[in-house]
């Protein structure tokens, strides 16, 4: 009890600073609501007060980038005086538990930040997500012209449940810089050159973790099923289940090329002085793809703290929230185009002039993903890989 009062008082004290700067008066009521926020619309103000009465928001942070966003949660608490109780860990684990809880009438989560796969396959069919557009209150957030291609992006068939807030160019190829010249690989078809036979290490392209890379390639008319069949059967790649293992093998020169799933680990190895690169310094001839990875935001249906949930969503998609997310996440750019992205490295920035395929906005990608993964699995299985 004492600790709660002390922390509440500290939050209240911190929140007085913007109030003094802008001359706004805090809303009355409980000690946790004595927090000053900048000028907002009456609707937002009402939402803030209601959220402060609830006092907390339950958030799941699932995935590499969302996990890092733990560091962003105190900013929300400081700004609004609403405590963020977050849980990290596997999306599958959380989905299983949440669905089991909901079956018996327990609703414990407000917001989900994470990958789209689990949400698409488990949460949406079980009606566990709330329709998103109606929850946006802040006019600044509702203004779709500020977003990439002038619209909000939803990665579900009905375009209303899984809001994709961030993306970055997808890099599928990592390579040993002492063994491969980037000019040797300007097209994915260059990977079918017999000189690379047996020299490529990769995740299985039918594994769920590679869908964001392999499915767009499958749908690309310049690549498609033919390319995958040739790659699996002619190039005899070595398939592993551990991305770190694959990237290390590329870094020490056991394999000159890594594909599917090796880029992130390769970048870390590069930063540790190994002769490896996690991306090609030029776009591939078949075109570039934007990958959302786990940069999705979802509102849980029948949330225990619905107002705090809505406030969190509006804050997360605000310019301030997005700037914080990409700065802390480091590996994803915001799809909100008025957010400065000089806080992230160049290879993660969305080029305003870039011509990207945007899978998470393509109905074909969303609706056919399972079918394509099944086809990829069959191709790999026929080539002897399980």
């Amino acid at each position, binding site marked *: 009890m004492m600790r709660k009062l002390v922390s509440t008082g500290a939050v209240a004290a911190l929140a007085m600073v913007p109030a003094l700067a802008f001359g706004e008066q805090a809303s009355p009521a409980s000690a946790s609501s004595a927090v000053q926020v900048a000028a907002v619309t009456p609707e937002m103000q009402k939402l803030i007060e209601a959220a402060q009465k609830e006092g907390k928001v339950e958030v799941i942070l699932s995935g590499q980038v969302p996990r890092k966003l733990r560091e962003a949660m105190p900013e929300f608490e400081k700004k609004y005086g609403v405590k963020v109780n977050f849980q990290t860990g596997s999306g*599958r684990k959380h989905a299983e538990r949440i669905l089991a809880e909901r*079956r018996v009438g*327990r609703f414990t989560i407000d917001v989900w930040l994470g990958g789209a796969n689990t949400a698409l396959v488990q949460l949406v069919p079980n009606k566990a997500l709330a329709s998103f557009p109606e929850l946006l209150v802040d006019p600044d957030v509702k203004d779709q012209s500020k977003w990439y291609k002038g619209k909000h992006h939803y990665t579900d068939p009905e375009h209303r449940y899984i809001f994709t807030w961030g993306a970055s160019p997808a890099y599928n190829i990592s390579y040993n810089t002492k063994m491969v010249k980037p000019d040797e690989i300007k097209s994915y078809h260059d990977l079918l050159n017999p000189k690379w036979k047996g020299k490529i290490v990769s995740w299985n392209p039918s594994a769920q*973790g590679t869908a964001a890379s392999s499915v767009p390639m499958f749908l690309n008319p310049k690549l498609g099923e033919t390319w995958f069949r040739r790659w699996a059967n002619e190039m005899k790649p070595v398939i*592993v289940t551990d991305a770190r293992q694959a990237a290390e093998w590329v870094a020490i020169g056991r394999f000159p090329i890594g594909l599917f799933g090796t880029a992130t680990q390769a970048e870390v*190895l590069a930063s540790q002085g190994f002769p490896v690169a996690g991306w090609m310094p030029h776009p591939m001839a078949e075109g570039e793809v934007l990958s959302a990875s786990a940069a999705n935001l979802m509102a849980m249906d029948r949330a225990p703290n619905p107002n705090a949930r809505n406030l969190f969503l509006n804050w997360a998609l605000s310019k301030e929230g997005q700037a914080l997310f990409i700065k802390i996440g480091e590996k994803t750019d915001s799809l909100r185009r008025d957010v400065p992205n000089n806080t992230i490295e160049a290879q993660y920035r969305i080029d305003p002039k870039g011509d990207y395929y945007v899978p998470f906005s393509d109905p074909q990608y969303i609706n056919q993903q399972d079918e394509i993964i099944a086809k990829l699995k069959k191709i790999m*299985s026929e080539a002897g890989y*399980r």
Partner: protein
Amino acid sequence: MTSAPIAAPPSRRFQWPAAGTFVMMLLILFFGFYIIYPIALIFIQSFNAETVVLGKYELSLINWQKAFTEPGTLESLWNTVFVYVAYTAVAFPVAVLISWVLARTPIPFSRGLEFMFWVSFMLPGLTTTIGWTLLLDPYFGFINVAFKGLFGTDMVLFNIYSVEGIVFAHLMGNAISQKVMLLTPAFRNMNVALEEAGRVSGAGRLRTMLRITLPVMVPPMVVVLMLNTVRMFNSFEIEQILGTPIKFYVYSTRIFNLVREAEPPLYGEATALASLTLIIILLFIPLQRWLLARRQYTTISGSYKPGLIHLGVMQPFAFAFVALVVALLTVVPVLTLLGGSFMTRAGFFQATPTYTLAHWQTVFADPIFFRALSTTFIISISTAVVSPVLFSMVAYILVRRAWRGRAVLDSIFWFSAGIPGMLSGLGLLWVILDTPGLNWLFGTIWILIIVAILQGKLTSIQMFKSTFLQIGQDMEEAARTSGAGWLYTYFRIWLPLIAPTLVLLGTLNFVLAAGATSSVILLASRDTVTLSLLALEYMTTNVGAAREVAGIISLVIVAMTAGIALVARWFGFQVGVRDRGI
């Protein structure tokens, strides 16, 4: 003439069942509910064609059909059995030999060496495998590189990415150490008088061991072998790291992929595949009962005499052999774990900088770490204290009491091994949430304590049973005849005799509780995250230093369990029976 009085008809008053029947009923109901009910739910769900939307049920055999018609199923099953037989064929006789040497001969530092097998058991299997890949990778492994340089050849001494490498990794993991842990206390219970009788009759040490010691040790050896066999389909990490690159697939990896990789998790197909274990169990239960009912295995009686056997000129060789095995089982993984925690990238000296304290800083700065540490400690200590007492009493009932229902209860425990933790955890989640009066447990530390205590039921009960089989009834009868009640007899007669087993299983269950993941992952809440779940989260997060951070958390778990094990062993030796050399 008067007729003989007619006897009164027998009374038709209701007679209460004997106390033993009540106790058995309660035990069967309790353990049946906890073990069989979740398994039944999982099995019922495996016949549901609907895998996504909860609440819908469409009776179908589709999951079973898909599971067994998937290409490569038979091949992966054969691979699993082959690898298991290969490493057990080596590990079992080696473990028996080492257990005999440690328990029955006065080799120097026998207690310390035995403890090192416990440490080997505590070390994470993945770390051991990775450590050996750093030495035996055909391209950059230190040993192979040195071999090539020394002999100027391109040939490798040993390629760990091979079937032989997989078998080797199992041997260097838990295959030997777990058996030594379980068998050494059993060998220590050997009555030296039996061996003396053999020697007096002219048998040499080897013949005595083969004709007297080993046959008497059949109960614990059979139990250890069976416990390992029913868990054959649980091992997948080694095969995943070493087997996948060479297209060597095993059955358990398929189950793992269906549960952990598929989206949504395909529990129905995984259950179908896992059901093979139940078939093995159905064969084992009657086999075990037949084997143990064939003869007496008493070694500890009123005339029990503990003792050691001197090996003469073979003594130093025996010590060297055990010490070598200990070194192989502990040095590499400990160096990998400890040394790797201070390296930017464990095992890679080319990284810049090579050494760093950043991983340790990450661990101690993680806001969840200290909470997870205290949660793990509470759960593990509770398990270590409660589980051996509880299961020793259950085992006593199964062995020493002629109450009805023992076969049913014993079978229930065996069935608990029929489904891997990653499946039974889901069944338990459903049971806890769906049962009125139980769902308050959800999200609390209490359910984790209950799961952790009951996690070690099969191994604990079977090991206690084999221990009780070694102990003669004469001492208990003498105590009872003298007027001692059951509790007094338990503490004054049984406890000193089973103290080593109590300590062993208390420590073993402490280790299992501290490392539990599959069985608790769905039941843990934000406030009850354990160290092993935190380590798992780091391991499965695809960021650069996560494995090193997970390794440090594993190191903390090992340090905690080793510390407790040392204390427990000291306590056990204080209250247990002492041995002396002959």
